[in-house]
């Protein structure tokens, strides 16, 4: 699936407005992201060459948690662009804790080659226990 240009632009605009205005009433913006197809679009944008598109993907995954995001987030948390990887880590933290989420986060926690992410993943697993 290719994200239509009009949809990509609208989602990008919604994410930017959302992030710029923390004290606006923002739930309608999230609803519109969903209605625009934000969940499937996030998966597509996560594979885009442009880091700006990948950042939008990570933000959509954070704002619209969904089981479909786990696989793309496994790659995005290691994105070479630091803004994208940071947003992706935040998004992964906020996903529903399914068995696939737990498997991925456990794997990240054991990955000593990325010490900072491993520490964060370990903290996530220990939260609220």
């Amino acid at each position, binding site marked *: 699936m290719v994200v239509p240009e009009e949809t990509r632009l609208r989602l990008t605009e919604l*994410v930017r407005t*959302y992030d*710029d205005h*923390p004290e*606006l009433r923002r739930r309608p913006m*999230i609803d519109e992201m969903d209605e625009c197809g934000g969940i499937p679009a996030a998966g597509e944008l996560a594979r885009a060459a442009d880091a700006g598109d990948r950042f939008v993907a990570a933000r959509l995954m954070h*704002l619209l*948690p969904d089981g479909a995001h786990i696989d793309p987030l496994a790659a995005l948390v290691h994105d070479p662009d630091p803004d994208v990887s940071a947003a992706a880590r935040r998004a992964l933290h906020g996903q529903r*804790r399914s068995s696939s989420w737990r498997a991925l986060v456990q794997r990240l926690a054991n990955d000593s080659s990325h010490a900072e992410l491993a520490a964060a993943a370990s903290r996530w697993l220990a939260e*609220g226990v």
Partner: protein
Amino acid sequence: MRTRLEQQSETPGPQAPETAVARGAAAVDAVLALQRTVGNAATVALLARQPVAAPRAPPSDASESWTKEEIKAVQRQLRRLRLYDLLIDGILGRFTELGLVEAFGGEEWRRLDAAATTSRLAAATRPGGGGGRTLRYAELFKDGVFDVTFGIGYKESPKDPDEESTANSQMAVIEAEAVKLLADRGFKEDANLAAKLLANAGRAVDDPGYGRWFVKENAATYAAPAGIPRQIHAVVRTIRNMERGAGGRARAAFVEAMTRGDAAFYTGHGRYGTGPDFDRNFLQFRIYDPPGKSPVQTLDDYDVLERELAKHGNPWTVFKKWVADGRLEVDFSNAGNLRLVAATPHKSEFGGALMQWALEQQQGGSAVATGTTGDLAAGAAVSGRKYRLLAFAGCRTLDYERSLRATPGFGAGEADVLETTRTVHAGYGAYAFAAFVDSVLGQVTTQKLQQAANRAMREHEPEFSGDPIVVTGRGGPRS
């Protein structure tokens, strides 16, 4: 339910300043006023954290011997200078005194006999500068130093809400913008010189090691109509929290600026009309299903939480039920909240209701700083100040107006306040602050200050609309 990371500190930082407030009779009056408003116990508690040097002897006040007819002559001259617009009644009351302070640029007239005072006033010419009220520049500049604190509230990053401590945090970006704008205006970072200038002016700072200090010597020339022109030094302090859940230190420094300083300027969240905030409020929402097991989801954004809760009914109703049932745990920090308003006027919004809920948790909730018994009244009473200038460049900060004005020391004649009428984008804060500093040092009218702040916002706020910045208060005399 988990609690905030840090109990809200009511006590300023531990460092004692080298110098202290010493205002003689004014300080004594202030203590008496404080005792009337907050009681002896609170007065003693507050004074205990205010290192005070030996008081100066009160100046002799020749004005006490002025006759009624002499005062009428003084009032006529003040009226001619447009520094007094009430009855010529021969009473040396508050507004006549205010006019005299503005005419002489300080308290010099108190040492003059009536003839000398009238003569000086008669020789004075009314300054130009356009219409509208001025700020009370004589009060701001009377000790030769204008000090202003730039308080940078918490601003979240979309990629990492825990970034307070990093050099790339949103607060660091705003501070860097402000520092550059100050440098463009000739300010230099120099904490030692700032301390020296403040000490010479008899100003105390409780936690001088906190924040950054910038100075511009001889930043302005102040010439009151009947006064002697003099140079004014400007001192700017920037403060921002850099530690998760530790906003109490920034809050204390900002309260000090609001009460003891000439001016305090805040940029950051309005917190749904409840007050400035120097750290992140909501750290984490953990959803359990069933309670007692590991969480099934951890969220860090309350708009996302609202949407999640809406799947189960009215979000606020579900929130309260889940918290009560142990299905939802909230980690939050109120340490940095300077609660100016007891009840948010935006409780119909999920975020507003959540903010109110958080402020009401633990030990009766976060103390409200406004009103006759709050921190602000107490601090203002012992400050000896008669006037202060405040700015709140956050979302819908006009919501603060009523509570602030009901606070002793912050009435319309005692404080001019810059506020906003709508939600705003935080990116303009440093630019509005620079316009604020320029306006004060340029001694413009309140109308021009308001225009300059709105212009800065128009130039730097994405999707700017309208002129949301207003200046409230009675200001000083007409110019």
